[in-house]
């Protein structure tokens, strides 16, 4: 009798752990490194889920966004794309220098912001955490991502203190074509590794 009760107890505890772990894994919250492996849209390495913020979000997306994108807007107002690797597929790292470049975006306003592995702004005081459409202008643009300010006067995003990081592209007031056909409407920024000295 005791052995049978023990077997049930072990089964229930194991089941609870299995259910918790599988839900976190499928939501991309566990292990931590998988947090960006989500979404229904992938435009040349920039991933998004257009159901973010809405009741249409599946429960896995809802749980992941609650953890990593709390208070995000629904797609009618803004869409968010994220990537954690460069154009060659290598993880973005504070130790490297990158050239971020692109052109006009199909939205009323856009920005690219750098976040660390905890989805927070990196703890530096460089006042260079993002670039946006207002500074970039309406045509082709480029910026440097590096832990130190580059010698030229161009746009710079500081990765100092970020460790492994990711980039979020915000597109506010998105054009209808972007929502309907992101693959053709969006020419996303390129992330080219310039050097990686360490």
């Amino acid at each position, binding site marked *: 009798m005791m052995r*049978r009760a023990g*077997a*049930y107890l072990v*089964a*229930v*505890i*194991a*089941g*609870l*752990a*299995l*259910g*918790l772990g*599988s*839900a*976190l894994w499928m*939501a991309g919250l566990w292990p931590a490194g998988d947090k960006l492996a989500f979404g229904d849209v992938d435009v040349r390495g920039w991933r998004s889920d257009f159901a973010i*913020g*809405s*009741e249409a*979000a599946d*429960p*896995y997306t*809802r*749980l992941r*966004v*609650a*953890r*990593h*994108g*709390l*208070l*995000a*807007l*629904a797609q*009618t*107002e803004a869409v968010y794309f994220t990537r954690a690797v460069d154009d060659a597929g290598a993880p973005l790292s504070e130790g490297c220098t990158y050239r971020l470049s692109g052109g006009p975006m199909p939205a*009323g*306003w856009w*920005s690219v*912001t750098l*976040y660390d592995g*905890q*989805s*927070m*702004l*990196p*703890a*530096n*005081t460089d*006042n260079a*955490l*993002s670039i*946006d459409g*207002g*500074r970039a202008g309406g045509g082709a643009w480029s910026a440097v991502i590096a832990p130190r300010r580059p010698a030229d006067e161009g746009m710079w995003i500081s990765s100092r*203190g970020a460790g492994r990081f990711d980039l*979020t592209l915000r597109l*506010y*007031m998105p054009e209808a074509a972007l929502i309907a056909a992101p693959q053709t409407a969006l020419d996303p920024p390129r992330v080219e590794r310039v050097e990686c000295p360490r």
Partner: protein
Amino acid sequence: MRRWVGPALALFGAAGLAHGLTLGLGPGVIMDRAMVALEARGVAVHAFTTPQRVTPQSQQVVRSSPDLYYALCRYDLSEPGSRLVVGMGDWPDYQSLSFFDARTDNFATLRGTDKAVSTRLLPPGSPSENGAIVSPSAKGVILIRRLAPDAESFAAAVEAGKADACRLERTSR
């Protein structure tokens, strides 16, 4: 062999239950924790809190944008007859008023580029009213975003924020 059927069913049942509960309750738990954290950082109930510019040192919520002015108001419409008067002052650039329920859903957003916006927020189950929004949950968060990518425009956004409103009203029933 048959003696393992019961424990196996218990294992799968517990796994399914834990899986479902994690997905079903997780966002609400995360939102609850965020509300507690916002309260601890001085975000008021039924009032927009004048924000600090988002920096690595001041950030309160994951993935905040340093280019935006964020003003938050927590609300609680649990008491019968309560409703919220919500307003967003004039701003010459992009601004929006967005509403999030206790499960993190963005259930409404009003854009107010170059204009002031006002509405009323009604408790769950209220009949619809012209110019009003019904909240899916009694508690939630309202967020004003204003495009303010530099210190000068952020200071101007703070001035504009003096016309914002998040005020509880009680109606006689």
